[in-house]
């Protein structure tokens, strides 16, 4: 199969270039398998990967123009030559590896942890199955960054807009019946940028490898904000 792979080693390359690679590989394999085999022949190729089953979120890349996890993208689903690039909009460190710090910063900034003001009981906080159902589609996020790095609003304002991944987590805690920091969380997201730069382009929904819906979560936050205002 034919591949075109984004290469850039800042120590030796003045600028990035696309490398053509031919590889004998069964089309039933995943993009990650192909990258591993290419690396076995040319160890200078650098990319992140780990679990190989879509739960660690290490191997977000851009394949034929779409963000995806290498380990979940089947070669046979792709048109040749298969173009593999780093996810867009982030500083490139080397080859397919980008600097994710900005992305992590926004995640940490939404206080992605349960906040309680009441004294802790000695037993579990009770939560009905229906209340717990509200967390489905939210807690499963693997922080791969496919969504935020496909979001034009995040590209324009990477320092101010929290981005779909962080906002999905903001809603994950707002939606949790155990959390007691609704006001604080909403206040934190108010203003023209952090939340409201979302223009419902919905790239995030299209690319999420876990089938999650950050746009819906963002709308839920907006609705809750409105409700709290009234």
């Amino acid at each position, binding site marked *: 199969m034919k591949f075109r792979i984004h290469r850039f*080693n*800042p*120590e*030796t390359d003045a600028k990035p270039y696309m490398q053509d690679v031919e590889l004998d590989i069964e089309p039933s394999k995943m993009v990650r398998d192909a990258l591993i085999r290419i*690396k*076995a022949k040319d*160890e*200078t190729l*650098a*990319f*992140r*990967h*780990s*679990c*190989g*089953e*879509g*739960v*660690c*979120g*290490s191997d977000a890349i851009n394949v034929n123009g779409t963000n995806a996890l290498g380990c*979940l993208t089947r070669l046979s689903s792709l048109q040749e030559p298969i173009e593999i690039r780093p996810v867009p909009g982030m500083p490139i*460190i*080397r*080859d397919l*590896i980008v*600097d*994710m710090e900005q992305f*992590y910063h926004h995640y*940490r900034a939404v*206080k*992605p*942890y*349960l906040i*309680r003001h009441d004294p*802790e009981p*000695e*037993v*579990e*906080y*009770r*939560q*009905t*199955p229906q*209340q*717990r159902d509200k*967390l489905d589609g939210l*807690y*499963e996020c*693997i*922080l791969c960054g496919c969504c935020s790095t496909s979001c034009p609003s995040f590209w324009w304002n990477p320092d101010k807009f929290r981005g779909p991944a962080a906002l999905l987590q903001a809603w994950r*805690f707002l939606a*949790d019946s*155990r959390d007691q920091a609704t006001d604080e969380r909403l206040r934190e997201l108010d203003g023209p940028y952090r939340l409201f730069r979302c223009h419902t382009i919905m790239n995030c929904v299209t690319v999420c490898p876990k089938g999650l819906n950050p746009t819906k979560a963002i709308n839920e936050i907006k609705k809750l904000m409105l409700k709290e205002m009234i």
Partner: protein
Amino acid sequence: MKIPKRKFDVLVIGAGGGGLRGSLQLAQAEASVAVVSKVFPTRSHTVAAQGGMNAALANVLPDNWHWHMYDTVKGSDYLGDQDAIEYMCRAASKIVIEMEHFGVPFSRLENGKIYQRPFGGQSQNFGGDQAARTCAAADRTGHAILHSLYQQNIRAKTHFFDEFFAIDLIKDDEGFILGAVVLEIETGEPMLIEAKTTLLATGGAGQLFRTNTNAHINTGDGLAMALRAGVPLQDMEFFQFHPTGIAGKGMLISEAARGEGGYLVNKDGERFMERYAPHAKDLASRDVVSRSISIEVLEGRGCGPSGDYVHLKLDHLKREVLDKKLPAICESIRTFLGVEPATDLIPVYPTAHYTMGGIPTNRHGQVVVPVSTGEEPIPGLYAVGECACVSVHGANRLGGNSLLDIVVFGRAAGNDIVNFLQENRYHRPMSEESVESALGRLARWDQKGKGEPVDTIRRELQAVMEKYCGVFRNEDILSEGLGKVLEIEQRMSQVRLQDHSRIFNTARIEAMELENLIDIAVATVTSALARKESRGAHSRTDYPDRDDQNWLKHTLYYKDTRRLDYKPVKLKPITVESFPPKERVY
């Protein structure tokens, strides 16, 4: 060579559940903590744990910690240390509730309590009816726990060194561990992290085997660092093969699939576990089920064109169970096999999964070595989780006990380190010699010229381990395997990197990971060859029985001269009566 230096009270190496639970305890106690991880914390392999975490909450069926203890001792084939097992099982309920308070999105029962499911090797009333002890967040419990722990560490302002690779521990002449030399992967520059205590939480070494359920990063770095620091490894012959990896591929299908009512069938459609374990059937402990599958295949009752796997049957389960309780494995089955679990059978085969052995510790997480009168801690060194051997898992770990292990002992080690810090208030003088030696390990990979590539050697090692150190073993196979592993070790000195760049050089990391794997492979095969009995996951066809007379003891392997030593199993619990070894039937 002058390298940058940072100083902390505690250095934690590894950011899975064990490391993060330890660092959280320490950060909350206002110690300065650095967590070094070769991947961003939520990419650690705890994230892939599926089925759940055991605790006798009795939310679904009657239960108590003592029954859990009995099951764990029996599951370990009596090689587990009963003081540590009592400690873990007693702590379990409190620890799970604490995790829930940290925000873990456990699945729920109608009454609002944490959902629990049956898992392998669980019983009520010391070997009676099946228990339901495994607390679950659907089949993404590891993900839920790891993310919650990382989130709590954000809150506690733990200091993270993400994408830093630990090269070696620093040890002074008096045997104190003083921190580690680490490599910043992005810049390729080494750095010294000085610490009054170091906690190893680097996980297991599933990458020893070609087909495994583990991540690419599971190369047992902490185990090998300990070996090179003169610490022995304990019980390395006990490696768990999970009964249900996707055949030929290795992706894990959680025991939860059987806990929720799935079962295994051979090519005749026979539910064969009824023959091997009439009482517990498909929920016998993992070593038993893996051996049974292997026997079915060896005796010609395997499925598929080559008869080399069996089927896991889920198609009789209610759609709601699949969607609500097993969503992630269903997704995984669809993605990697292209079949539909609601209608199709799933090809599975025992797959390398979990390192029962590891760095010997006591129940406080202190790394301990034998001295003439028992054991002594190595000052300044702790280990928890899969890289450690407490030993709560003995010769076979029960499903749902590893997530428990990491949080229980991560927390316990954190607490003990707080005490250690009170008695050891100041950093000790640095051992420049030890730093140089660690840097030498890095410099070795600057050697240029022709040589075998890392990838070739790694693949050979994995193939050798799979063939010569798998589910069934005997003297001939293991001797031959040891020869092959030692030959690979020899060849390693001729391996050269072609990529000598600095910035994010993953080839160099993989080279050092391979060195680690080779050290562990030698430890594993050497220990397995010496143990002339069958116990838990270590199954010798030439010694098919357990031999408590001669082998009710822990193996210790030392890297220098590949020496073996043994130490007694702690059969005495903390407060209750001992569970003496007896025949193990499920």
